[in-house]
Every structure is written in structure tokens, then in C-alpha cells.
């Protein structure tokens, strides 16, 4: 848009204002604008579709206000799991629609315990105190002055798949595995900050606290914080998204998602864990004998086929490029195998990129479907030699004491049944 030129068409103004602002403006401006906006999916803007785009001029450069949006023909969105309360709830990444390895920031899964706060980065401070030589506070400007690192890591909620322990429940891979996302994160290593404040002898744990309504807290081993804890302000090349912790989030590579404290405002070094509500009453794994495992941080090796997956329908026998994602919280994925006969026979899958530590890798497998019923599975082995288990193996270890027992850390092999008519369903096999 040219400087000083006022758009005459209200819809053009909304589009120029960018999708989010446009949607908000539409809600205010009334039904005409709202109707126009609803013709485009979330994150997109609607434009009239020319009969032949080569016969008329396209849109002006930067007419979108300088921040792009996705195509109006692309509609995949996060799906909120229907918890009773929409402020403490989660939304899931549409893994069946994702391409490549990174998750689009706007499709990164969410888990909030008290809604998404709005935080002014100019007022946000990180306090680092407790068993340190010099307790300090850091503004976002301070934090960004430290040397930064940029690394790709997955984050997976420990509750990913919690509906699937006893019977196949959710129908799509978005429902069964969508609490998994991968981003490139940019920030300052905790170790850099630790040196800045000085660590006292005897410190072994660090409390991380968020600035949301839940004032979310988790105790993290100091050793982990020093190994690869990252205070991230960047995600996929831009500022971290509000629902991912803007302006500052703790990234703990390979640890369960809820420890990656969003809206990070405080780190307190201690000689013992604080036994917060999240690490006692919530994110613990109640076993069949009535004892609960605590501080079960690591997300173990896991993989899933995303194509074909639940609710899809294959058009007929022939070639299919079976593809999916594999990851491990303990390091690199070493290998992925695929089976089309429910795990009786396994074949090596192709890795589409060189696996990175604690990062998803996309795999693929050329499959000729003969048109007969089949059960597709994938399993991965990580660099420690750990092999992704079957559900039966996991249940034998953890027990299956109902929907309130050991519901977290389900990393079992996923089965998709392909029926003779090509329809694909979530099964236990």
C-alpha cells in the first residue's frame, strides 16, 4: 500500500491490516465485514479468485501491511481437546496435514493452565535468585544482549496419547499424537546466565515460574538446566508466539512439555525440589501398585505414521509413500522401521534428513498396497539403543489402572488399520 493512501474499500482495509487485526476489526465493524472475513480460514485472507490469474494484475507488493498470511485455500487448524474449561485446556497440531519437519508456529500445540497472558516485553523481567552469588533481574533487552544459540527441538506434552491406553479412542493422528511440535528456538543458554549470577555450592534444583494466571511452576534439576536449558525468545525466525510463552520461555530439550515454562519470569536456585502442585498432584505417573512415579521428565523414543493415518481413505491399490515422524528425548533417532502386517515383518524406512538430537525427523517408506486389509506401524530406535515399545510392553510395565492412573508418557507403537475399501482407522494391534 502506498503511504498516505486510505483504502476506500472496507474489506481491503481489513486485509491490509493483517489477518489477526482483520479478524478483530471484523468483529467490531459489523456483519458485512464479518461475513467477508469468514470466507477465509483462520490465518488467511479472502481474495476474489480470478478466472485466469494471467489475465489480470495481482495484488500490490506489501499490500498485506508487510506481514504475510497463508493461502485462503489452506484450512488446517489446531484442535482444542474438549476439556470442560477452555482456559485450562490443550490444542493439538494437525500432524496429518504437516509437511516436512518443522511445525508452523501458528499450528504448534498448546497447553495452558490459566489462559494466555498478554505481556509487554518492555515491562517483563526475569529474576534469577536463591542459591546464587548475586541475585539479578534481567530485562528482555538484557537477555537479548547475551550470546544466543539457535537449535531445533521438539516439544511433546507428557499427556500426548493419554486417551489411547485402554482402547483406540481418538480417530485421527491429530488426536492421538498432536501434542507434539517442532520448532527452531533462539535464546540464551541457562549456563550463560548462571555464570553471570554465580552459583553457590550445594544448589541442585531450579524453580522455574511463569507469569500467567496459573503462575505455573516446576522444579528442574540444576544439572539439566546447565546441560542444555535454553531461555528462548525466538521461534522459527521471529519472536516466540504469545501462546508459546512470549516474550520468554524455558526450553528443556527432551523433557515433558509442561516443564518448558512459558512466560518465564523467575528462576530460583535451591538445594531441593519445591514439590509444586504440577510435580506432585498432576504430572506424576500413578502405577498399579498405588505408588506414583515422580519427576518422570524424559520423553522416550516414539514415532508415528502420519500418512496414511486415521480417517483417511486410500483411493485404491498401488503405490503409497508412507511417511511420518520419529523423535526421542534422549538424543538422535538412530533408525525407523515400518511394518504393514501389524509388526510381524519390519522394513527399514528412509530418513528424509540427517537426524538431530532431540528433534523430530521425517521418515518415509515406499509401499505397494495390494488392496488387502493391512495394519501399518512404525517403530524407532534412538541412539541410546532404546527401541520404541509395543503398547502391550508398556502396559505390562505401567499397569492399566483406568483413566486416572499412569496416563502420561505413552510412547507405544501406533497401529493404523487399512481396510479393503481403503479406509484407515485407529486400532490396537
Amino acid at each position: 500500500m502506498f503511504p498516505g493512501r486510505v483504502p476506500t474499500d472496507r474489506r481491503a482495509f481489513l486485509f491490509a491490516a493483517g489477518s489477526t487485526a482483520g479478524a478483530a476489526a471484523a468483529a467490531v465493524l459489523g456483519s458485512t465485514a464479518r461475513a467477508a472475513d469468514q470466507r477465509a480460514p483462520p490465518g488467511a485472507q479472502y481474495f476474489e479468485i480470478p478466472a485466469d490469474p494471467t489475465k489480470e494484475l495481482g495484488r500490490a507488493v506489501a499490500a498485506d501491511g508487510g506481514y504475510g498470511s497463508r493461502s485462503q485455500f489452506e484450512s488446517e487448524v489446531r484442535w482444542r481437546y474438549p476439556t470442560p474449561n477452555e482456559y485450562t485446556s490443550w490444542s493439538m497440531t494437525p500432524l496429518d496435514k504437516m509437511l516436512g519437519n518443522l511445525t508452523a508456529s501458528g499450528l504448534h500445540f498448546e497447553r495452558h493452565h490459566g489462559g494466555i497472558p498478554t505481556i509487554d516485553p518492555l515491562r517483563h523481567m526475569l529474576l534469577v535468585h536463591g542459591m546464587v552469588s548475586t541475585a539479578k533481574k534481567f530485562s528482555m533487552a538484557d537477555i537479548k544482549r547475551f550470546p544466543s544459540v539457535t537449535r531445533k527441538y521438539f516439544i511433546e506434552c507428557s499427556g500426548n496419547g493419554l486417551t489411547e491406553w485402554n482402547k483406540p479412542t481418538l480417530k485421527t493422528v491429530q488426536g492421538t499424537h498432536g501434542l507434539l511440535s517442532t520448532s527452531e528456538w533462539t535464546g540464551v543458554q541457562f549456563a550463560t546466565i548462571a555464570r553471570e549470577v554465580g552459583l553457590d555450592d550445594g544448589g541442585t534444583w531450579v524453580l522455574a515460574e511463569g507469569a500467567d494466571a496459573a503462575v505455573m511452576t516446576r522444579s528442574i534439576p540444576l544439572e539439566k538446566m546447565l546441560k542444555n536449558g535454553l531461555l528462548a525468545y525466538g521461534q522459527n525466525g521471529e519472536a516466540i508466539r504469545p501462546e508459546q510463552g512470549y516474550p520468554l520461555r524455558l526450553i528443556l530439550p527432551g523433557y515433558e512439555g509442561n516443564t518448558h515454562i512459558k512466560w518465564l519470569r523467575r528462576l530460583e536456585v535451591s538445594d531441593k525440589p519445591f514439590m509444586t502442585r504440577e510435580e506432585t498432584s498432576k504430572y506424576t505417573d500413578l502405577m498399579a501398585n498405588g505408588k506414583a512415579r515422580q519427576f518422570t521428565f524424559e520423553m522416550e523414543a516414539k514415532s508415528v505414521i502420519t500418512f496414511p493415518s486415521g480417517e483417511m481413505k486410500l483411493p485404491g491399490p498401488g503405490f503409497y509413500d508412507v511417511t511420518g515422524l520419529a523423535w526421542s528425548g534422549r538424543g538422535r533417532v538412530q533408525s525407523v522401521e515400518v511394518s504393514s502386517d501389524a509388526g510381524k515383518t519390519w522394513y527399514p524406512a528412509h530418513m528424509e534428513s540427517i537426524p538431530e538430537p532431540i528433534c523430530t525427523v521425517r521418515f518415509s517408506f515406499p509401499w505397494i498396497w495390494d488392496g488387502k486389509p493391512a495394519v501399518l506401524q512404525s517403530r524407532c530406535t534412538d541412539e541410546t539403543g532404546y527401541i520404541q515399545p509395543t503398547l502391550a510392553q508398556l502396559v505390562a510395565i505401567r499397569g492399566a489402572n483406568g483413566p486416572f492412573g499412569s496416563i502420561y508418557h505413552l510412547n507405544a507403537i501406533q497401529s493404523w488399520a487399512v481396510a479393503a475399501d481403503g479406509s484407515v482407522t485407529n486400532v490396537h494391534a
Partner: protein
Amino acid sequence: MFTRDACVGAASLCLAALPLTVGALAQDTPPFGFGSPTTQQELAKFFAIPPDGRGLPPGSGDATLGAKIYAQNCTSCHGDHLEGNPAKGVGGDKLIGGRGTLATKTPIKTVESYWPYATTLFDYVKRAMPFNAPGSLSDDDVYSVVAYILAQATIINPTETMNATTLPKVVMPNRDGFEPDPRPEMQLYR
């Protein structure tokens, strides 16, 4: 040895020399000097209460006052009888009951049956409750409502006062119900 001031004037030279410079500094010397000291006053508004009760504020409360605080602030989500409310738009946890169920097929996890430390209850209520007005209760109110929940759970006597001394001494029924993570299980390796 370069100083940081010298670095500003000789940036390109300093870039090459910086790793050596940092390595030569004493272990406890902050290499960057970013950030500013915090005061005790600034830190005083933050808290996280571990089982030993460190950081519990002054004040006190009992179940009698706690019943009133609960009725005013908690019933819409947690029910008149602490039984929880699963209704759409609410989804409040059940707070009492469930003792003896943890090793069954239908475990019921509540403050009474599952939470290992009473200090956690104080920390969480002060931190994040009431759900729609977090942090709005006074410390006396928090002690009171904690006393009420613990008394309703028959963990303390209804006449007991909860304060910074008494709360950490409360022994929760599931105090020894937790064990460290034994993973990875060796049978899952190749």
C-alpha cells in the same frame, strides 16, 4: 589482557581475542555485566513453598473462617462439599475423598488421597486460586481455606490453626506414595 572498555574501541580485534579473555577471567567474575541486582524488597513478592515451609508468610487461619472463605470463593468450581464440578465451562477438581483407591482400577486422586505435602496446597491456593481471580486471597484467607480443606479431609482436627509453624508438620496420607523415575527400563533396549 583486554578489558571490556577496550573491546568497545577495538571490536574487530577483540572478537578474535574474546574467548581467550573470558577464559582468563576468574571463575566467579560475570563476563558480561548485563542485568541489575535485585533487592530483597523486589524478591519479597515472589514465593514458592517447599515441604519444609521455608517462605511461608506470617498469618494464620482455621477451618471455621476457612468455611466462609471457601463458600465465597471456591464452591462454584469445587462444589458445596468439595466434590468437584465437571460441568462444561467449569471443570473443578474434587478435593477430598478417595483414600484407599490409588491401587485400584478406579483411582480417585484428591488433595486428601494423593497430595503428599500440605505446603503444596498453600502454595497453589495462594498462587493460582480462585481460578478467575488468582492471587486475590490474603495470607490469612489462604491459611484458613487450607485448614478447611484439610479438616474436611479429616487430616487435621477442625479446631487446629494453620500457620507457618503448624502447616509443614501436617502429615498427608499419601506422604510416602511417590518414587523416583526408574526409567529407562532395561528390557526396552535392543
